[in-house]
Protein backbone atom coordinates (compact mmCIF):
# COMPACT_ATOMS: atom_id res chain seq x y z
CA UNK A 1 0.00 0.00 0.00
CA UNK A 2 2.73 2.34 -0.95
CA UNK A 3 1.92 5.19 -3.25
CA UNK A 4 -1.12 6.50 -5.07
CA UNK A 5 -0.95 8.36 -8.33
CA UNK A 6 -1.31 12.04 -7.61
CA UNK A 7 -3.52 13.00 -10.50
CA UNK A 8 -4.70 9.52 -11.17
CA UNK A 9 -7.09 7.30 -9.28
CA UNK A 10 -5.84 5.37 -6.32
CA UNK A 11 -4.70 2.04 -7.69
CA UNK A 12 -6.38 -1.02 -6.40
CA UNK A 13 -3.30 -2.72 -5.09
CA UNK A 14 -2.08 0.64 -3.87
CA UNK A 15 1.32 0.21 -5.40
CA UNK A 16 2.95 2.31 -8.06
CA UNK A 17 4.73 -0.79 -9.12
CA UNK A 18 2.94 -1.59 -12.33
CA UNK A 19 4.84 0.78 -14.54
CA UNK A 20 4.95 4.53 -14.50
CA UNK A 21 2.23 6.11 -12.39
CA UNK A 22 -0.29 7.90 -14.54
CA UNK A 23 0.33 11.25 -12.96
CA UNK A 24 3.31 13.53 -12.79
CA UNK A 25 3.50 13.40 -9.01
CA UNK A 26 2.90 10.89 -6.25
CA UNK A 27 2.30 11.15 -2.55
CA UNK A 28 4.56 9.20 -0.19
CA UNK A 29 2.42 6.85 1.84
CA UNK A 30 4.74 7.20 4.76
CA UNK A 31 5.33 10.95 5.13
CA UNK A 32 2.64 12.28 2.74
CA UNK A 33 5.22 14.32 0.89
CA UNK A 34 4.28 15.14 -2.70
CA UNK A 35 7.05 13.89 -4.95
CA UNK A 36 7.64 14.39 -8.64
CA UNK A 37 7.38 11.03 -10.31
CA UNK A 38 10.65 11.63 -12.12
CA UNK A 39 12.58 12.24 -8.90
CA UNK A 40 10.80 9.36 -7.23
CA UNK A 41 11.66 6.95 -10.02
CA UNK A 42 15.20 8.24 -10.23
CA UNK A 43 15.54 7.57 -6.53
CA UNK A 44 14.47 3.96 -7.07
CA UNK A 45 11.10 4.65 -5.40
CA UNK A 46 12.70 5.60 -2.13
CA UNK A 47 11.03 8.73 -0.76
CA UNK A 48 13.44 11.61 -1.17
CA UNK A 49 12.08 13.16 1.98
CA UNK A 50 11.61 10.39 4.56
CA UNK A 51 13.60 7.57 2.97
CA UNK A 52 10.64 5.21 2.96
CA UNK A 53 11.32 2.28 0.64
CA UNK A 54 8.28 1.87 -1.57
CA UNK A 55 7.67 -1.49 -3.16
CA UNK A 56 9.15 -2.40 -6.51
CA UNK A 57 7.68 -4.89 -8.89
CA UNK A 58 9.90 -7.70 -10.11
CA UNK A 59 10.93 -5.93 -13.30
CA UNK A 60 11.81 -2.71 -11.55
CA UNK A 61 13.86 -4.74 -9.10
CA UNK A 62 15.54 -6.64 -11.86
CA UNK A 63 16.47 -3.44 -13.63
CA UNK A 64 18.27 -1.95 -10.65
CA UNK A 65 19.90 -5.24 -9.65
CA UNK A 66 21.32 -7.19 -12.58
CA UNK A 67 23.84 -6.08 -15.15
CA UNK A 68 22.24 -4.72 -18.30
CA UNK A 69 20.96 -7.32 -20.75
CA UNK A 70 22.38 -10.11 -18.62
CA UNK A 71 19.09 -11.59 -17.41
CA UNK A 72 17.86 -14.76 -19.06
CA UNK A 73 14.56 -15.84 -17.67
CA UNK A 74 13.93 -19.51 -17.00
CA UNK A 75 10.65 -21.32 -16.58
CA UNK A 76 8.60 -18.37 -17.78
CA UNK A 77 6.20 -20.89 -19.25
CA UNK A 78 5.06 -22.23 -15.88
CA UNK A 79 1.44 -21.29 -15.34
CA UNK A 80 -0.82 -21.79 -12.37
CA UNK A 81 -3.55 -24.38 -12.62
CA UNK A 82 -6.60 -24.41 -10.41
CA UNK A 83 -6.37 -27.91 -8.99
CA UNK A 84 -8.87 -27.32 -6.17
CA UNK A 85 -11.35 -25.40 -8.34
CA UNK A 86 -11.10 -22.83 -5.62
CA UNK A 87 -13.68 -20.03 -5.57
CA UNK A 88 -12.61 -17.08 -7.74
CA UNK A 89 -9.06 -18.37 -8.20
CA UNK A 90 -9.25 -18.40 -11.97
CA UNK A 91 -10.60 -14.88 -12.00
CA UNK A 92 -7.87 -13.70 -9.67
CA UNK A 93 -5.19 -15.32 -11.79
CA UNK A 94 -6.63 -13.80 -14.90
CA UNK A 95 -6.74 -10.37 -13.36
CA UNK A 96 -3.21 -10.70 -11.96
CA UNK A 97 -1.88 -11.60 -15.37
CA UNK A 98 -3.49 -8.50 -16.78
CA UNK A 99 -2.41 -6.05 -14.12
CA UNK A 100 0.96 -7.39 -13.02
CA UNK A 101 4.07 -6.98 -15.13
CA UNK A 102 4.94 -10.56 -14.24
CA UNK A 103 3.27 -13.76 -15.36
CA UNK A 104 3.50 -15.23 -11.87
CA UNK A 105 4.49 -14.12 -8.37
CA UNK A 106 8.16 -14.77 -8.97
CA UNK A 107 10.48 -14.45 -11.93
CA UNK A 108 13.65 -16.48 -12.04
CA UNK A 109 16.65 -16.67 -14.28
CA UNK A 110 20.38 -16.42 -14.70
CA UNK A 111 22.15 -13.09 -14.83
CA UNK A 112 25.29 -11.33 -13.83
CA UNK A 113 25.29 -9.00 -10.86
CA UNK A 114 28.24 -6.65 -10.65
CA UNK A 115 29.91 -8.95 -13.13
CA UNK A 116 29.36 -12.15 -11.18
CA UNK A 117 27.17 -14.90 -12.64
CA UNK A 118 24.23 -15.76 -10.43
CA UNK A 119 20.86 -17.41 -10.40
CA UNK A 120 18.35 -14.83 -9.32
CA UNK A 121 14.73 -15.01 -8.26
CA UNK A 122 12.60 -11.95 -7.66
CA UNK A 123 9.19 -12.14 -6.10
CA UNK A 124 6.50 -9.90 -7.47
CA UNK A 125 4.05 -8.63 -4.90
CA UNK A 126 1.87 -7.21 -7.66
CA UNK A 127 0.95 -10.73 -8.68
CA UNK A 128 -1.56 -11.93 -6.09
CA UNK A 129 0.44 -10.47 -3.23
CA UNK A 130 3.49 -12.50 -4.17
CA UNK A 131 1.77 -15.58 -2.78
CA UNK A 132 3.51 -18.93 -3.12
CA UNK A 133 1.56 -21.55 -5.02
CA UNK A 134 2.77 -24.50 -7.02
CA UNK A 135 4.30 -22.37 -9.75
CA UNK A 136 6.22 -20.14 -7.37
CA UNK A 137 7.52 -23.12 -5.42
CA UNK A 138 8.45 -24.95 -8.59
CA UNK A 139 10.21 -21.96 -10.12
CA UNK A 140 12.23 -21.36 -6.97
CA UNK A 141 13.16 -25.03 -6.64
CA UNK A 142 14.19 -25.20 -10.30
CA UNK A 143 16.17 -22.00 -10.03
CA UNK A 144 18.05 -23.40 -7.06
CA UNK A 145 18.73 -26.56 -9.01
CA UNK A 146 20.16 -24.46 -11.81
CA UNK A 147 22.41 -22.88 -9.20
CA UNK A 148 23.58 -26.33 -8.13
CA UNK A 149 24.15 -27.42 -11.69
CA UNK A 150 26.04 -24.32 -12.79
CA UNK A 151 27.57 -23.71 -9.34
CA UNK A 152 26.27 -20.14 -9.38
CA UNK A 153 25.32 -18.40 -6.15
CA UNK A 154 21.56 -18.03 -5.79
CA UNK A 155 20.02 -14.69 -4.85
CA UNK A 156 16.37 -14.44 -3.86
CA UNK A 157 14.51 -11.15 -3.44
CA UNK A 158 11.41 -11.93 -1.40
CA UNK A 159 8.07 -10.10 -1.29
CA UNK A 160 5.07 -12.17 -0.39
CA UNK A 161 2.14 -12.39 1.93
CA UNK A 162 2.68 -16.13 2.31
CA UNK A 163 1.31 -19.32 0.87
CA UNK A 164 -1.32 -19.17 -1.87
CA UNK A 165 -4.41 -20.30 -0.04
CA UNK A 166 -6.23 -20.97 -3.28
CA UNK A 167 -4.05 -24.01 -3.91
CA UNK A 168 -4.72 -25.49 -0.49
CA UNK A 169 -2.29 -28.05 0.83
CA UNK A 170 -0.35 -27.93 -2.42
CA UNK A 171 0.75 -24.42 -1.58
CA UNK A 172 1.77 -25.40 1.95
CA UNK A 173 4.02 -28.06 0.47
CA UNK A 174 5.90 -25.41 -1.50
CA UNK A 175 7.39 -24.31 1.82
CA UNK A 176 8.92 -27.73 2.25
CA UNK A 177 9.90 -28.01 -1.39
CA UNK A 178 11.76 -24.71 -1.54
CA UNK A 179 13.42 -25.33 1.84
CA UNK A 180 14.56 -28.77 0.80
CA UNK A 181 16.01 -27.25 -2.36
CA UNK A 182 17.96 -24.77 -0.24
CA UNK A 183 19.20 -27.74 1.77
CA UNK A 184 20.56 -29.35 -1.40
CA UNK A 185 22.15 -26.09 -2.40
CA UNK A 186 23.89 -26.00 0.95
CA UNK A 187 25.17 -29.57 0.84
CA UNK A 188 26.61 -28.66 -2.55
CA UNK A 189 28.41 -25.72 -1.00
CA UNK A 190 26.70 -23.09 -3.13
CA UNK A 191 25.92 -19.77 -1.43
CA UNK A 192 22.35 -18.61 -0.92
CA UNK A 193 21.73 -14.90 -0.45
CA UNK A 194 18.32 -13.63 0.55
CA UNK A 195 17.17 -10.04 0.32
CA UNK A 196 13.95 -9.51 2.25
CA UNK A 197 11.77 -6.73 0.91
CA UNK A 198 8.45 -5.33 1.98
CA UNK A 199 6.45 -7.39 2.83
CA UNK A 200 7.70 -10.91 3.55
CA UNK A 201 5.42 -12.84 5.83
CA UNK A 202 3.75 -16.17 6.53
CA UNK A 203 4.83 -19.30 4.73
CA UNK A 204 7.22 -17.44 2.48
CA UNK A 205 9.13 -16.05 5.41
CA UNK A 206 8.92 -19.36 7.29
CA UNK A 207 10.63 -21.28 4.51
CA UNK A 208 13.40 -20.44 2.06
CA UNK A 209 13.49 -16.76 3.07
CA UNK A 210 14.87 -17.62 6.51
CA UNK A 211 17.52 -19.94 5.16
CA UNK A 212 20.01 -17.64 3.49
CA UNK A 213 23.68 -17.99 4.28
CA UNK A 214 23.47 -14.24 4.34
CA UNK A 215 20.15 -12.49 4.81
CA UNK A 216 19.79 -8.81 3.97
CA UNK A 217 16.68 -6.69 4.30
CA UNK A 218 15.52 -3.33 3.07
CA UNK A 219 14.84 -0.76 5.78
CA UNK A 220 11.36 -0.65 7.28
CA UNK A 221 10.09 -3.72 5.47
CA UNK A 222 7.31 -5.71 7.11
CA UNK A 223 8.82 -9.08 7.94
CA UNK A 224 7.23 -11.65 10.20
CA UNK A 225 5.42 -14.90 10.64
CA UNK A 226 1.83 -13.99 11.33
CA UNK A 227 0.29 -10.68 10.49
CA UNK A 228 0.54 -7.93 13.04
CA UNK A 229 -3.17 -8.24 13.61
CA UNK A 230 -2.74 -11.80 14.78
CA UNK A 231 -0.05 -10.79 17.20
CA UNK A 232 -2.20 -7.95 18.40
CA UNK A 233 -4.88 -10.31 19.58
CA UNK A 234 -2.90 -11.29 22.64
CA UNK A 235 -4.27 -9.74 25.74
CA UNK A 236 -2.11 -7.47 27.82
CA UNK A 237 0.99 -7.75 25.71
CA UNK A 238 2.33 -4.51 24.33
CA UNK A 239 3.95 -5.05 20.99
CA UNK A 240 7.13 -3.14 20.29
CA UNK A 241 6.78 -0.30 17.82
CA UNK A 242 9.03 -2.01 15.34
CA UNK A 243 7.23 -5.37 15.65
CA UNK A 244 7.65 -7.46 12.51
CA UNK A 245 9.90 -5.07 10.65
CA UNK A 246 13.42 -5.45 9.32
CA UNK A 247 14.65 -3.62 12.39
CA UNK A 248 12.84 -6.02 14.75
CA UNK A 249 14.25 -9.02 12.94
CA UNK A 250 17.78 -7.60 13.04
CA UNK A 251 17.42 -7.03 16.76
CA UNK A 252 16.29 -10.63 17.17
CA UNK A 253 19.17 -12.12 15.29
CA UNK A 254 17.28 -13.17 12.19
CA UNK A 255 18.97 -11.03 9.55
CA UNK A 256 22.52 -9.96 8.91
CA UNK A 257 22.10 -6.41 7.78
CA UNK A 258 19.60 -3.81 6.81
CA UNK A 259 20.77 -2.35 3.53
CA UNK A 260 19.21 0.74 1.96
CA UNK A 261 18.21 0.15 -1.65
CA UNK A 262 20.93 2.35 -3.05
CA UNK A 263 23.59 0.38 -1.18
CA UNK A 264 22.42 -3.04 -2.30
CA UNK A 265 24.67 -3.21 -5.37
CA UNK A 266 27.79 -2.71 -3.26
CA UNK A 267 26.60 -5.19 -0.64
CA UNK A 268 25.88 -7.83 -3.28
CA UNK A 269 29.17 -7.13 -4.98
CA UNK A 270 31.11 -7.63 -1.76
CA UNK A 271 29.28 -10.87 -1.04
CA UNK A 272 29.55 -12.24 -4.55
CA UNK A 273 33.22 -11.44 -4.70
CA UNK A 274 33.77 -13.19 -1.39
CA UNK A 275 31.91 -16.28 -2.54
CA UNK A 276 33.60 -16.27 -5.94
CA UNK A 277 37.00 -16.21 -4.24
CA UNK A 278 36.05 -18.97 -1.83
CA UNK A 279 34.73 -21.08 -4.71
CA UNK A 280 37.99 -20.65 -6.59
CA UNK A 281 39.86 -21.68 -3.51
CA UNK A 282 37.68 -24.71 -3.13
CA UNK A 283 38.25 -25.90 -6.65
CA UNK A 284 41.97 -25.48 -6.10
CA UNK A 285 41.68 -27.66 -3.02
CA UNK A 286 39.58 -30.15 -4.95
CA UNK A 287 42.27 -30.24 -7.59
CA UNK A 288 44.94 -31.21 -5.12
Amino acid sequence: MAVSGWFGRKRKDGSPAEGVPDGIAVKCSSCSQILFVRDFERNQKVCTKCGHHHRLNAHERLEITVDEDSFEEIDAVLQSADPLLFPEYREKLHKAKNTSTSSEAVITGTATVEGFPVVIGIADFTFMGGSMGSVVGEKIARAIEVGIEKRFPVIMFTASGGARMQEGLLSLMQMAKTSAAVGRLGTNGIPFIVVLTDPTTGGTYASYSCLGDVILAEPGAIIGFAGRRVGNQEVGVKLPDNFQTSEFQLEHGMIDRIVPRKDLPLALKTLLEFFALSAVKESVIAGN
Partner: protein
Amino acid sequence: MQGTNFDFEKPIAELEAMIASLKSVEGRSKAAAEGIDIDTAVEPLELELHRVMEKVYGNLSAWEKTQMARHKDRPYSLDYIRLIFDDFFELHGDRLAANDEAIVGGLAKLNGQPVVVIGQQKGRDLKERQRRNFGSARAEGFRKALRIARLAEKFRVPLFTFVDTAGAAADLRAEEHGVSEAIARNLMEFSLLRIPVIVTVIGEGGSGGALGVAVGDRVLMLEHSVYSVISPEGCAAILWRDKAMANEAADALKLTAQYAHQLNLVDEILPEPLGGAHRNVTDMALTLKEALVRHLNELSGSGETTLVDGRYSRLRSMGVFQEKVSR
Protein backbone atom coordinates in the same frame (compact mmCIF):
# COMPACT_ATOMS: atom_id res chain seq x y z
CA MET B 1 -22.33 -41.09 24.25
CA GLN B 2 -18.78 -39.92 24.39
CA GLY B 3 -17.89 -37.53 21.67
CA THR B 4 -21.34 -37.09 20.17
CA ASN B 5 -21.27 -33.37 20.52
CA PHE B 6 -21.58 -32.11 16.95
CA ASP B 7 -24.71 -31.32 15.00
CA PHE B 8 -24.10 -34.08 12.54
CA GLU B 9 -23.93 -36.55 15.37
CA LYS B 10 -27.42 -35.80 16.71
CA PRO B 11 -29.21 -38.80 15.20
CA ILE B 12 -26.49 -40.98 16.60
CA ALA B 13 -26.71 -39.42 20.01
CA GLU B 14 -30.48 -39.96 20.05
CA LEU B 15 -30.19 -43.65 19.16
CA GLU B 16 -27.41 -44.14 21.66
CA ALA B 17 -29.48 -42.50 24.37
CA MET B 18 -32.44 -44.73 23.55
CA ILE B 19 -30.37 -47.92 23.67
CA ALA B 20 -28.69 -46.86 26.88
CA SER B 21 -32.01 -46.10 28.49
CA LEU B 22 -33.42 -49.47 27.46
CA LYS B 23 -30.36 -51.26 28.75
CA SER B 24 -30.24 -49.38 32.02
CA VAL B 25 -31.17 -51.08 35.28
CA GLU B 26 -34.50 -49.33 35.20
CA GLY B 27 -35.12 -50.25 31.58
CA ARG B 28 -34.21 -53.84 32.22
CA SER B 29 -36.51 -54.17 35.17
CA LYS B 30 -39.37 -52.59 33.22
CA ALA B 31 -38.79 -55.00 30.32
CA ALA B 32 -38.52 -57.95 32.69
CA ALA B 33 -41.86 -56.97 34.20
CA GLU B 34 -43.36 -57.18 30.71
CA GLY B 35 -41.52 -60.43 29.89
CA ILE B 36 -39.31 -58.91 27.20
CA ASP B 37 -35.69 -59.97 26.64
CA ILE B 38 -34.10 -56.58 26.43
CA ASP B 39 -30.99 -57.67 24.57
CA THR B 40 -33.02 -59.18 21.76
CA ALA B 41 -35.32 -56.19 21.68
CA VAL B 42 -32.48 -53.74 21.41
CA GLU B 43 -30.75 -55.59 18.59
CA PRO B 44 -32.52 -53.85 15.70
CA LEU B 45 -31.84 -50.51 17.30
CA GLU B 46 -28.19 -51.35 17.54
CA LEU B 47 -28.12 -52.38 13.92
CA GLU B 48 -29.79 -49.12 13.04
CA LEU B 49 -27.25 -47.22 15.09
CA HIS B 50 -24.45 -48.95 13.24
CA ARG B 51 -26.06 -48.16 9.92
CA VAL B 52 -26.53 -44.51 10.79
CA MET B 53 -23.00 -44.22 12.06
CA GLU B 54 -21.57 -45.72 8.91
CA LYS B 55 -23.60 -43.32 6.88
CA VAL B 56 -22.74 -40.24 8.90
CA TYR B 57 -19.05 -40.93 9.40
CA GLY B 58 -18.61 -42.19 5.89
CA ASN B 59 -19.90 -38.94 4.47
CA LEU B 60 -18.48 -36.24 6.64
CA SER B 61 -18.02 -32.87 5.02
CA ALA B 62 -14.67 -31.14 5.16
CA TRP B 63 -15.89 -28.96 7.99
CA GLU B 64 -17.28 -31.96 9.88
CA LYS B 65 -13.90 -33.65 9.47
CA THR B 66 -12.29 -30.55 10.90
CA GLN B 67 -14.56 -30.83 13.91
CA MET B 68 -13.70 -34.50 14.28
CA ALA B 69 -10.00 -33.69 14.04
CA ARG B 70 -10.40 -31.13 16.80
CA HIS B 71 -12.64 -33.31 18.95
CA LYS B 72 -11.92 -32.79 22.62
CA ASP B 73 -11.72 -36.54 23.24
CA ARG B 74 -9.58 -37.26 20.21
CA PRO B 75 -6.43 -39.20 21.10
CA TYR B 76 -3.32 -37.05 21.20
CA SER B 77 0.28 -37.88 20.40
CA LEU B 78 1.11 -39.12 23.89
CA ASP B 79 -1.88 -41.49 23.81
CA TYR B 80 -0.56 -43.16 20.69
CA ILE B 81 3.02 -43.08 21.88
CA ARG B 82 2.04 -44.93 25.04
CA LEU B 83 -0.06 -47.49 23.20
CA ILE B 84 2.30 -48.17 20.30
CA PHE B 85 5.81 -47.87 21.71
CA ASP B 86 7.58 -49.44 24.67
CA ASP B 87 9.92 -47.85 27.19
CA PHE B 88 9.23 -44.30 26.03
CA PHE B 89 11.89 -42.10 27.58
CA GLU B 90 10.76 -38.52 27.20
CA LEU B 91 13.40 -35.88 26.52
CA HIS B 92 12.96 -32.20 27.19
CA GLY B 93 14.30 -28.90 26.05
CA ASP B 94 15.81 -27.28 23.00
CA ARG B 95 19.23 -26.81 24.70
CA LEU B 96 18.86 -23.14 23.85
CA ALA B 97 16.24 -21.37 25.90
CA ALA B 98 13.20 -23.36 26.89
CA ASN B 99 11.28 -26.58 27.08
CA ASP B 100 8.27 -26.05 24.86
CA GLU B 101 5.65 -28.52 25.96
CA ALA B 102 3.61 -28.14 22.79
CA ILE B 103 6.13 -30.64 21.45
CA VAL B 104 6.91 -33.94 23.13
CA GLY B 105 9.59 -36.34 22.10
CA GLY B 106 11.96 -39.00 23.21
CA LEU B 107 13.52 -42.39 22.82
CA ALA B 108 11.39 -45.50 22.56
CA LYS B 109 11.14 -48.99 21.19
CA LEU B 110 8.85 -50.23 18.47
CA ASN B 111 8.53 -54.01 18.54
CA GLY B 112 11.88 -54.13 20.31
CA GLN B 113 13.61 -51.85 17.83
CA PRO B 114 15.02 -48.51 19.02
CA VAL B 115 13.26 -45.49 17.53
CA VAL B 116 12.77 -41.82 18.25
CA VAL B 117 9.34 -40.23 18.44
CA ILE B 118 8.22 -36.62 18.28
CA GLY B 119 4.67 -35.41 18.65
CA GLN B 120 2.63 -32.28 18.85
CA GLN B 121 0.60 -32.39 22.03
CA LYS B 122 -2.48 -30.28 22.67
CA GLY B 123 -3.23 -31.16 26.26
CA ARG B 124 -6.32 -32.75 27.71
CA ASP B 125 -7.61 -30.48 30.46
CA LEU B 126 -7.46 -26.70 30.65
CA LYS B 127 -4.37 -26.64 32.80
CA GLU B 128 -2.47 -28.99 30.51
CA ARG B 129 -3.67 -27.10 27.48
CA GLN B 130 -2.27 -23.87 28.82
CA ARG B 131 0.98 -25.56 29.72
CA ARG B 132 1.20 -26.88 26.17
CA ASN B 133 -0.05 -23.66 24.59
CA PHE B 134 -2.93 -25.70 23.09
CA GLY B 135 -0.44 -27.59 20.99
CA SER B 136 0.86 -24.49 19.24
CA ALA B 137 4.64 -24.66 19.36
CA ARG B 138 6.85 -21.63 19.52
CA ALA B 139 10.33 -21.49 18.01
CA GLU B 140 11.59 -23.42 21.02
CA GLY B 141 9.27 -26.31 20.26
CA PHE B 142 10.47 -26.67 16.70
CA ARG B 143 14.06 -26.47 17.87
CA LYS B 144 13.38 -29.09 20.52
CA ALA B 145 11.98 -31.29 17.76
CA LEU B 146 15.08 -30.74 15.66
CA ARG B 147 17.38 -31.53 18.54
CA ILE B 148 15.57 -34.79 19.17
CA ALA B 149 15.47 -35.61 15.46
CA ARG B 150 19.23 -35.13 15.32
CA LEU B 151 19.67 -37.58 18.16
CA ALA B 152 17.80 -40.09 16.05
CA GLU B 153 20.11 -39.37 13.16
CA LYS B 154 23.21 -39.57 15.33
CA PHE B 155 22.26 -43.01 16.56
CA ARG B 156 20.82 -44.14 13.23
CA VAL B 157 17.36 -44.99 14.44
CA PRO B 158 14.13 -44.24 12.60
CA LEU B 159 12.06 -41.20 13.49
CA PHE B 160 8.29 -41.10 13.87
CA THR B 161 6.47 -37.82 14.15
CA PHE B 162 2.85 -37.18 15.02
CA VAL B 163 1.19 -34.03 13.78
CA ASP B 164 -1.62 -32.41 15.71
CA THR B 165 -1.71 -28.63 15.91
CA ALA B 166 -3.93 -25.75 14.96
CA GLY B 167 -0.74 -24.02 13.88
CA ALA B 168 2.44 -22.56 15.27
CA ALA B 169 2.24 -19.90 17.95
CA ALA B 170 2.16 -16.41 16.53
CA ASP B 171 2.58 -14.37 19.67
CA LEU B 172 5.27 -11.87 20.55
CA ARG B 173 7.65 -14.38 22.05
CA ALA B 174 7.26 -16.67 19.05
CA GLU B 175 8.26 -13.83 16.75
CA GLU B 176 11.06 -12.69 19.03
CA HIS B 177 12.61 -16.12 19.09
CA GLY B 178 12.17 -16.63 15.38
CA VAL B 179 9.36 -19.12 14.95
CA SER B 180 9.65 -18.61 11.18
CA GLU B 181 13.32 -19.45 11.24
CA ALA B 182 12.69 -22.49 13.39
CA ILE B 183 10.02 -23.85 11.05
CA ALA B 184 12.09 -23.10 7.96
CA ARG B 185 15.14 -24.77 9.43
CA ASN B 186 13.15 -27.88 10.30
CA LEU B 187 11.80 -28.08 6.76
CA MET B 188 15.35 -28.01 5.48
CA GLU B 189 16.98 -30.17 8.12
CA PHE B 190 14.27 -32.82 8.16
CA SER B 191 14.67 -33.10 4.40
CA LEU B 192 18.33 -33.98 4.98
CA LEU B 193 18.00 -36.47 7.86
CA ARG B 194 19.85 -39.66 6.99
CA ILE B 195 17.31 -41.92 8.68
CA PRO B 196 13.79 -43.08 7.85
CA VAL B 197 11.21 -40.48 8.87
CA ILE B 198 7.55 -41.46 9.07
CA VAL B 199 4.96 -38.77 9.71
CA THR B 200 1.38 -39.28 10.78
CA VAL B 201 -1.24 -36.57 10.89
CA ILE B 202 -3.38 -37.77 13.77
CA GLY B 203 -5.69 -34.78 14.17
CA GLU B 204 -5.24 -31.26 12.99
CA GLY B 205 -2.51 -30.56 10.47
CA GLY B 206 -2.47 -26.80 10.81
CA SER B 207 -0.36 -24.94 8.29
CA GLY B 208 3.36 -24.24 8.76
CA GLY B 209 3.14 -25.30 12.37
CA ALA B 210 2.20 -28.80 11.28
CA LEU B 211 4.69 -28.89 8.44
CA GLY B 212 7.48 -28.03 10.86
CA VAL B 213 7.53 -31.65 12.02
CA ALA B 214 5.99 -33.21 8.93
CA VAL B 215 8.72 -33.60 6.32
CA GLY B 216 9.34 -37.30 5.95
CA ASP B 217 9.62 -40.33 3.73
CA ARG B 218 6.06 -41.31 4.40
CA VAL B 219 3.14 -39.17 5.44
CA LEU B 220 0.09 -40.98 6.75
CA MET B 221 -3.20 -39.47 7.80
CA LEU B 222 -5.92 -40.83 10.02
CA GLU B 223 -9.26 -41.05 8.28
CA HIS B 224 -10.81 -38.07 10.01
CA SER B 225 -7.74 -35.91 10.33
CA VAL B 226 -7.27 -32.75 8.30
CA TYR B 227 -4.29 -30.96 6.81
CA SER B 228 -4.52 -27.43 5.55
CA VAL B 229 -2.58 -24.38 4.52
CA ILE B 230 -4.87 -22.18 6.60
CA SER B 231 -7.67 -22.78 9.07
CA PRO B 232 -11.17 -22.77 7.59
CA GLU B 233 -12.00 -19.83 9.86
CA GLY B 234 -8.96 -17.89 8.67
CA CYS B 235 -9.76 -18.66 5.07
CA ALA B 236 -13.39 -17.62 5.50
CA ALA B 237 -12.31 -14.37 7.09
CA ILE B 238 -10.12 -13.59 4.09
CA LEU B 239 -12.50 -14.80 1.40
CA TRP B 240 -15.80 -13.60 2.76
CA ARG B 241 -14.81 -11.51 5.77
CA ASP B 242 -16.90 -13.88 7.85
CA LYS B 243 -15.39 -16.51 10.10
CA ALA B 244 -18.77 -18.16 10.38
CA MET B 245 -18.40 -19.35 6.80
CA ALA B 246 -15.75 -21.85 7.90
CA ASN B 247 -17.93 -24.65 6.54
CA GLU B 248 -17.74 -23.27 3.00
CA ALA B 249 -14.06 -22.48 3.41
CA ALA B 250 -13.29 -26.02 4.52
CA ASP B 251 -14.95 -27.29 1.37
CA ALA B 252 -12.99 -24.87 -0.76
CA LEU B 253 -9.70 -25.80 0.90
CA LYS B 254 -10.37 -29.50 0.42
CA LEU B 255 -8.50 -30.14 3.64
CA THR B 256 -9.48 -33.77 4.18
CA ALA B 257 -7.16 -36.74 4.30
CA GLN B 258 -9.00 -38.14 1.32
CA TYR B 259 -8.26 -35.15 -0.84
CA ALA B 260 -4.65 -34.91 0.28
CA HIS B 261 -4.29 -38.54 -0.73
CA GLN B 262 -5.86 -37.83 -4.08
CA LEU B 263 -3.28 -35.08 -4.66
CA ASN B 264 -0.50 -37.55 -3.76
CA LEU B 265 0.54 -35.43 -0.84
CA VAL B 266 -0.01 -38.26 1.64
CA ASP B 267 0.72 -41.92 1.16
CA GLU B 268 -1.99 -43.68 3.05
CA ILE B 269 -5.17 -43.05 4.94
CA LEU B 270 -5.60 -45.12 8.06
CA PRO B 271 -9.22 -46.06 8.77
CA GLU B 272 -10.55 -44.97 12.13
CA PRO B 273 -12.87 -46.98 14.32
CA LEU B 274 -16.51 -46.28 13.51
CA GLY B 275 -17.32 -42.88 14.95
CA GLY B 276 -13.76 -41.72 15.21
CA ALA B 277 -10.48 -42.61 16.85
CA HIS B 278 -11.66 -41.47 20.26
CA ARG B 279 -14.35 -44.14 20.36
CA ASN B 280 -11.75 -46.88 20.38
CA VAL B 281 -8.27 -45.62 20.99
CA THR B 282 -6.84 -49.10 21.38
CA ASP B 283 -8.08 -50.20 17.97
CA MET B 284 -6.86 -47.00 16.39
CA ALA B 285 -3.44 -47.48 17.95
CA LEU B 286 -3.29 -51.03 16.60
CA THR B 287 -4.12 -49.87 13.10
CA LEU B 288 -1.55 -47.11 13.37
CA LYS B 289 1.11 -49.41 14.75
CA GLU B 290 0.60 -51.90 11.96
CA ALA B 291 0.98 -49.13 9.40
CA LEU B 292 4.06 -47.63 11.03
CA VAL B 293 5.78 -51.01 11.18
CA ARG B 294 4.85 -51.79 7.60
CA HIS B 295 6.14 -48.49 6.24
CA LEU B 296 9.27 -48.72 8.33
CA ASN B 297 9.96 -52.18 6.94
CA GLU B 298 9.55 -50.85 3.43
CA LEU B 299 12.08 -48.11 4.14
CA SER B 300 14.55 -50.13 6.16
CA GLY B 301 16.25 -51.63 3.16
CA SER B 302 17.17 -48.24 1.75
CA GLY B 303 20.61 -46.71 2.15
CA GLU B 304 20.99 -43.23 3.56
CA THR B 305 21.48 -41.57 0.20
CA THR B 306 18.49 -43.35 -1.30
CA LEU B 307 16.38 -42.18 1.60
CA VAL B 308 17.44 -38.55 1.38
CA ASP B 309 17.17 -38.50 -2.40
CA GLY B 310 13.78 -40.14 -2.23
CA ARG B 311 12.54 -37.63 0.30
CA TYR B 312 13.71 -34.80 -1.93
CA SER B 313 12.04 -36.28 -5.02
CA ARG B 314 8.88 -36.69 -3.03
CA LEU B 315 8.82 -33.00 -2.11
CA ARG B 316 9.88 -31.96 -5.59
CA SER B 317 6.92 -33.78 -7.07
CA MET B 318 4.43 -31.78 -5.01
CA GLY B 319 2.65 -29.14 -7.00
CA VAL B 320 0.14 -28.88 -9.79
CA PHE B 321 0.80 -26.46 -12.63
CA GLN B 322 0.81 -26.11 -16.37
CA GLU B 323 3.89 -25.82 -18.50
CA LYS B 324 2.79 -23.93 -21.60
CA VAL B 325 5.14 -23.07 -24.35
CA SER B 326 3.24 -19.94 -25.27
CA ARG B 327 2.97 -17.23 -22.70
